[in-house]
């Protein structure tokens, strides 16, 4: 069936006049992207739409409403507002994203990139490998590594014991700090790579001119480098915010949201509700809130990007 089709097109090419070809060009311009659009709609958009629609029903994993879910309108969202664990989760998510991504990964990544641009080739290569190795690990492996590090009998406490200090049970006493540090460790490489690329594109002549005018290194950073790489900063912030907002495996392996929900961010809450309690309707409602928060950040950063370009 395919063979004749190809032959048809081949003959078209031979006999077609120029105008014929250009009209064919116009009408078939989007044809090559159709498969990818279909795949995107099928595998990305459809689940999001399904999840959003489900959040208005009482669909569940088992029980009466598993196969015959009922439309419940805004019930799930109303329940969310009345549920004390929901605002707590929102707050923990904001803390997690702000501390580990917006402040942590972003500033540490920029700092590392700046230092590496000044350091010798060997040092910057070694430092680069050390930082990036955390990032190339699959998330599940990184999560177990972090668990092994912060665990009661873990590496951190052994190191502390070696210098005569007594550690504590970090995952129990400081669960948020532990997962923030773990995410910082895992994600900094990404920001570092983005900023290294951005810094390489800063024209040397501008900073040299500033140097001639007597600008110190902090002044050059604040008035030359940062303004030049502003759009990279905004792009980086957007990407790491969205990535961190969705972090699940790391937290689930390290603390499973505990103790006593002290590290239950929104993705963990959504998972618990949908799969542990089988309440898919409520779980998808929480997931929809994550999407809304993500889009708010996304829109804010996109606007930031737009304003920069005169």
């Amino acid at each position, binding site marked *: 069936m395919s063979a004749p089709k*190809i032959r048809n097109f081949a003959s078209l090419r031979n006999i077609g006049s120029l105008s014929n070809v250009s009209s064919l060009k116009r009408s*078939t311009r989007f044809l090559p992207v159709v498969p990818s659009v279909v795949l995107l709609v099928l595998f990305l958009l459809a689940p999001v739409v399904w999840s959003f629609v489900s959040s208005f029903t009482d669909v569940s994993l088992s*029980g009466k409403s598993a196969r015959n879910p009922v439309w419940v309108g805004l019930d799930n969202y109303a329940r969310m507002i009345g549920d004390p664990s929901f605002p707590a989760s929102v707050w923990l998510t904001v803390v997690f994203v702000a501390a580990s991504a917006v402040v942590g990964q972003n500033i540490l990544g920029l700092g590392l990139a700046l230092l590496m641009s000044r350091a010798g080739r060997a040092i910057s290569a070694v430092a680069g490998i050390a930082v990036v190795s955390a990032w190339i690990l699959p998330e599940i492996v990184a999560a177990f590594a972090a668990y092994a590090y912060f665990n009661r009998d873990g590496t951190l406490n052994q190191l502390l014991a070696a210098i005569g200090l007594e550690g504590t049970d970090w995952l*129990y006493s400081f669960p948020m700090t532990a997962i923030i540090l773990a995410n910082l460790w895992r994600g900094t490489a990404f920001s570092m790579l983005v900023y290294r690329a951005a810094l390489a594109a800063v024209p040397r002549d501008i900073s040299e001119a500033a140097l001639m005018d007597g600008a110190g290194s902090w002044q050059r950073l604040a008035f030359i480098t940062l303004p030049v790489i502003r759009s990279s900063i905004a792009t980086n912030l957007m990407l790491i915010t969205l990535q961190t907002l969705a972090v699940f495996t790391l937290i689930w392996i390290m603390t499973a949201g505990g103790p006593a929900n002290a590290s239950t961010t929104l993705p963990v809450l959504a998972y618990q509700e949908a799969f542990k309690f089988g309440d898919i309707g409520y779980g998808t409602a929480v997931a929809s809130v994550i999407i809304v928060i993500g889009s708010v950040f996304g829109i804010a950063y996109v606007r930031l990007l737009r304003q920069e370009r005169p």
Partner: protein
Amino acid sequence: MNLRPRLSAIAVAALMVVATAACSPGPGEPQARTLTVMYQKTDSFVALENVLKDAKGEFEAANSGITVELEPIQANDDDYGTKLALAQRSPETAPDVFYEDTFKVRADVEAGYLLKLDEHLQKWEDWKQFSEGAKAAGRADDGGIYAVPLGTDTRAIWYNKTVLQKAGIPVPWQPRTWQEILDTARKIKANDPSVVPFNMYAGKGTGEGTVMQSFYELLYGTGAALYDEKDRKWVVGSQGFTDSLTFLKTLYDEGLAVTPAEALDANVWKKVFGEWLPQGKMGATVEGSYAPSFWQAGGSYEWPGYATEMGVARFPTQNGQEPGGVSMSGGWTLAVGAGTAEPDLAFKFLTTALNKKNALAFDINSSQIAVRADVAADPAYQSANPFIKEVSELVDVTHYRPATADYPRISTAVQVATESVITGKQSPDEAGAVYDQTVREIVGDDKVIQK
């Protein structure tokens, strides 16, 4: 003219469409008759897989032309349940026969996932071998039977004889009241403060372990219950609930159990089985009758000395009241999917997997308590491990979870109450009040009963 690449892209797209069409089977082709079987498999749990492989061989030999497709799911209990439920949601992925936790049966029947087996069971010769309790394990609210158990389990106190003897406690040890547990634990602690005297799980970390192997032994020993089976209502405000929390608080506050931080680690049970009990660092714990499966040759924490080092005792009631002991039971079943195209064949496979030979192999290899009379009477079963007789007797004092669709949330509410108490966040009274409030929110005021 950049036409050539574009045309080849179109050609590729066209080819893809053709290829996709070629993949789906045409009408009229004779369809191979297959049965899909979904079950759980982990590194330390292959007993079921072995049994099902044997059953597949037997079944295919006896029914030519039929293929049994085994679909193992590598996951822990919670995730297995989730993945099974997700597969059951769609008729395309729903298995014909599957491994089903007894406490999910009622909810899954309500969801319409399970096939009613009453008619098939009547014609099955072996059905009379199953004990009445075992038959009830697969019964739903409508009285019909939807699942057939592979085995069951009970919970008991497992204690290290050497640790107890060092503290001057005579073995065999059998506490008759809660107070006697505390007295013994305090003696062990006084003798050697580095030992964990008497562990009971608490908190959300150990999940169902917290309720099945700790809290319910306490609660059902006070005369209270979680659920009123007669009125079909959840019990709130009972004195037994608060008393049980108080007992846990005492254990944790006095350092008689593990530290709260250890208790909240989901992996604490691995240390109990793998380190503390074998190394004599723990006096006793409450655990399932399947405990020997971890220590037997081939188990996750092989310990040849367990048969002589360990002892087993029944968990006492609060003040020694009748019936003098408490246990909890669960267990797993095989069930047939409601949407199966081959109900007769599926049931036939189920009976093959559950015949005497296969049930015996499963019960021995995973340290389950037999539910078939002929398996229980088999010498190989009775000598499978040194504790089988004692833990089997606990069936007389055992309880089952009220496995309604609301149960997972209620169970979590109980776990939260224990966690709040052992971490000192709330007093037993406060935690009990929070639990009552949560239950009311989950099931509604008309489904609770004040006791």
